[in-house]
């Protein structure tokens, strides 16, 4: 029994001047899957995310989300359909506190118009209190209560990263696009993340597409993996098959593809464990 495709990308083409960033990239993610997007630095993974969320307008190709063609929708409209993302260099607003950031992420489900809020119409006060309560719950789930009223700009990297994740969830999405969720985490924390991701999928019925360099994590949680190299799809498949794929090894190691023995796992996480992305 195959579940329906939540995200489908067909023939994505993205050029910056003479540089072909993405070339005829197609992929799909089914509901309830955790899918990995891996590839060496500069392969076009984050650019792909930017095309999916509408930050970049690709020259060709189409993006379908939840059964509709979103290729020409602006970013905020795609977000409202249930697409949430985290950022490699963090999607928190430094000038706001953790609570305010999470409440910012609730923007699309605030349920009142900006004008109503500005005029202080009756329902908005009540709704603000509800949003604040929901935010407090999310903050507690992620163990951020201690820093709830601190400005995120003053917090350490790991905490801000957690806040970014909390924000992605606060928007009540159908799908999470995670850009290197494990970067900056210790190896143990990264494996702990595997449990969190699975819980999100199983309890909140989320579908996840993630860019990740931390290979043990990818092998652990992903149902399916796409490998990107120089903007093109190198291969795709289940993690176990991917890690023995000669071209993948070559792309990562930069050498000739001649695996003489079954490799343990040749793809080293870049910069991990003390890595910066």
């Amino acid at each position, binding site marked *: 029994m195959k579940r329906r495709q939540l995200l489908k990308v067909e023939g994505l083409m993205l050029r910056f001047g003479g540089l072909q960033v993405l070339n005829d990239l197609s992929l799909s993610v089914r509901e309830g899957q955790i899918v990995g997007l891996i590839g060496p630095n500069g392969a076009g993974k984050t650019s792909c995310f930017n095309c999916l969320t509408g930050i970049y307008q690709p020259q060709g190709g189409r993006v379908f989300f939840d059964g509709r063609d979103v290729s020409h929708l602006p970013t*905020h409209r795609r*977000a409202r359909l249930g697409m949430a993302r985290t950022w490699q260099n963090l*999607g928190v*607003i430094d*000038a706001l506190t953790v609570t305010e950031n999470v409440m910012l992420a609730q923007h699309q489900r605030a349920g009142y118009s900006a004008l109503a809020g500005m005029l202080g119409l009756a329902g908005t006060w009540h709704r*603000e209190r509800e949003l604040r309560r929901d935010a407090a719950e999310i903050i507690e789930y992620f163990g951020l209560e201690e820093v709830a009223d601190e400005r995120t700009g003053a917090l350490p990297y790991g905490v801000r990263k957690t806040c970014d994740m909390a924000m992605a969830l606060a928007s009540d999405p159908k799908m999470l696009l995670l850009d290197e969720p494990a970067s900056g985490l210790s190896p143990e924390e990264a494996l702990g993340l595997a449990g969190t991701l699975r819980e999100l999928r199983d309890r909140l019925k989320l579908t996840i597409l993630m860019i990740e360099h931390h290979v043990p994590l990818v092998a652990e949680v992903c149902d399916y993996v796409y490998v990107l190299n120089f903007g093109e799809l190198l291969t795709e498949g289940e993690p176990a098959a991917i890690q023995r794929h000669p071209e993948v090894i070559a792309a990562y190691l930069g050498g000739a593809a001649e695996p003489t023995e079954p490799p343990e796992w040749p793809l080293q996480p870049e910069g991990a464990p003390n890595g910066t992305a």
Partner: protein
Amino acid sequence: MATATMVLTRVKVQRRFGLALRVTVVIALLALAALPLLLGGDVWAQRISRAAIYAVIGLSINTLTGHAGQISLGHQAFVGIGAFAAAFMASRLGAPLGFGLAAAGVAGAFTAVVIGLVALRVTGLYLALVTLAFGLTAETTIFNWREFTGGGAGAFAPRPAVLASDHAFAPLCLGVLGLVLYLDWRIVSTKTGRALAAVRNDERIASTLGVNVTGYKLAAFSLSGLIAGLAGGLFAHWNQIVQAMDFEFQVALVWVLMTVVGGLRSRLGVILASAFFALLPLTLPNFLSSLPWQPPFLNEAVYHVLPPFIVVVMLLIVLRCFPGGFGQLLRPATAWLSGKRQS
């Protein structure tokens, strides 16, 4: 158990006492601020109106620059168009004051949206240049359009009989200021404020969180223009005559600087700094020339050009020592008054 209850009661009593004290302090401060209006005669009533109008302008710039992070060096255009619209309504059409002020607000908002549409394409330094050019152009074109503004002679903006005295007019200005303060407070306390903070800091992040960046930018421009236009309408009736020279670039520059000196996103700071810069040119020259000892080479003419220098010096001090402006200096006091715990 008993001790725990006692401790709790004491905390409650202290809090209640703290609240009573805070309310007393606020009332005392407001009363102190109202004193000149009650006791000061027409001159002070007039000055307070001017201070309130400046504060409304400061809050207008605060909406645009403080909340949305967009710069405008052409605010004299928005305020001026509001002023001429109000004067036109009052003297040509004989419309009631309320209609005149509404027209002023709409005219200001409309003008600001036009600039806002440009701001969607350019940011930062280029936006500053565009708004600067727009303000200067408005001065020489719209404000000198004889049929609308009366050309060099200016346009009259008579007050209705009930508001003829300065003492009757000042509460109107303070009322509008109160209204704008309320709007500002609701903006920062709702999703609008959070969305604007996101737009100000990172448009990409804002958009992926579902914030319509374009919409919020335009909304900030139109609201800022609306408030500026309202202030212009009040100014027209305050002065009872509007001339193009009232809205020169230097004035707009002072408005932006006073908002920064007051502290972006600090309501109290913006009000205090605006009032200060509204009254400085009126009071300082008289005060200095009334001093018994006059330094050589200085005279009243020199004193009249002092205020702009003072603005610039204060700006430098603020930028160097406390970038949050007056608002930052006042934060301990405002935090106590609002009942927030100091950590």
